[in-house]
């Protein structure tokens, strides 16, 4: 059952295309709220800015690489993502937060919770994949990281001094070892 994409998907598109006016609108709507939440919970304005930036980049990443489709309104989604990030940060600094997780969020829809959770989960997953990637042999790491940079694969082959055919063969082998490495960890 596919859920309907929310009209606020346009904010994601704005992030993808760096539409400054619309990104600024996001700030006008949400920055103040994130700031007061962080200030009230033992943080500074700089902390709030860092959290906000990280959240926006995460959302950009998920929209671009994970095809994130927003089925809930953008504002509560972003606020929730920021809150969760800050609470995690407090946990790291081992300060107990003033506001409880679910506090004053009761009016937020289930969709929003699900999407915020999925965002966090996918981010954690990506960093686990990256850790597995780090365990590959040097040659495999080189081939995969070059081919992920976003340039045309023919050009990547040229840079690495191999044929395009060899690159495809080697990349599939390396990626297969990576998948197996990740599978073993999950077992």
């Amino acid at each position, binding site marked *: 059952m596919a859920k309907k994409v929310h009209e606020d998907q346009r904010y994601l598109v704005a992030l993808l295309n760096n539409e400054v006016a619309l990104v600024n609108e996001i700030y006008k709507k949400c920055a103040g709220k994130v700031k007061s939440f962080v200030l009230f919970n033992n943080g500074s304005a700089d902390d709030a800015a860092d959290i906000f930036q990280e959240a926006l980049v995460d959302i950009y990443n998920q929209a671009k690489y994970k095809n994130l489709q927003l089925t809930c309104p953008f504002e509560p989604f972003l606020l929730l993502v920021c809150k969760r990030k800050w609470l995690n940060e407090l946990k790291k600094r081992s300060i107990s937060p*003033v506001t409880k997780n679910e506090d004053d969020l009761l009016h937020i829809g289930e969709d929003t919770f699900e999407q915020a959770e999925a965002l966090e989960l996918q981010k954690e997953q990506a960093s686990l994949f990256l850790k597995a990637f780090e365990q590959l042999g040097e040659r495999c790491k080189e081939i995969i990281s070059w081919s992920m940079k976003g340039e045309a694969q023919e050009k990547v082959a040229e840079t690495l001094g191999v044929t395009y055919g060899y690159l495809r063969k080697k990349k599939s082998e390396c990626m297969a070892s990576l998948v197996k490495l990740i599978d073993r960890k999950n077992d």
Partner: protein
Amino acid sequence: MTEDKILWTAQYVEGDLNEEERLAFENLLSHDEELKQHLADYYDIHSSLQMELANDSNRNTLVETIKTLNKEHFVAEQPKVVKFNPYLRWVSGVAAVLVLGMLIWEPWRSNLYKDFNVVPQMTVAERGAEKTDLDNAAGLFNEQKYAEAKVVLAKLHAADAQNAMISYYYGVALMETTEVAKGRLLLEELFNGQSVYKYDAVYAIAMSYLKEDKKTDCKFWLEKIPKDASRYEQAQNLLRKL
């Protein structure tokens, strides 16, 4: 076999299969659930890794935009600068001298605590003819016999440490007698919790510091009281005077 399927999937996605092999893969894919899962996993891992490793110029531009907007929207609070016309400048000069004089004279200083300390009244729901310890405690507390109230409240608190109402009044009673530190500790616990006494506790802690003329500590606590708390107005008034 599973591992071969993983390699096969990678070869399929990376275009490392010849025409015949590719068709065989797609044919199997139409009914092999395991292979479908491998393909979905492959795309998932590939895109996640791309997210981490891509040299994404769009993302870099976005980060620049964000950094600029951050400077605009996340500045630490700064006092506003208001420009005066020359006449106002004189008036404000005179006013400033008067204010300075008042600050040295400080006619209100001694009364701040009296003015702002709210003597809490402990209200207990009536439950019948029999007088309970709670009723006794409330009676003593409201007559400001804190030392006696404290004894009863200590007993009640020991029996039910989670009861926020008892904790609050016990904390206040402790602070009103000589056990200020212990009282504060108890009230701080309330502040860390989620009861309705949360900000009353904060206000009471602030008052205990005001009583000792520790203005910085008093301010520190007052500033924790949010706009929607009932003590907010009072706290702000006091903050202005401190």
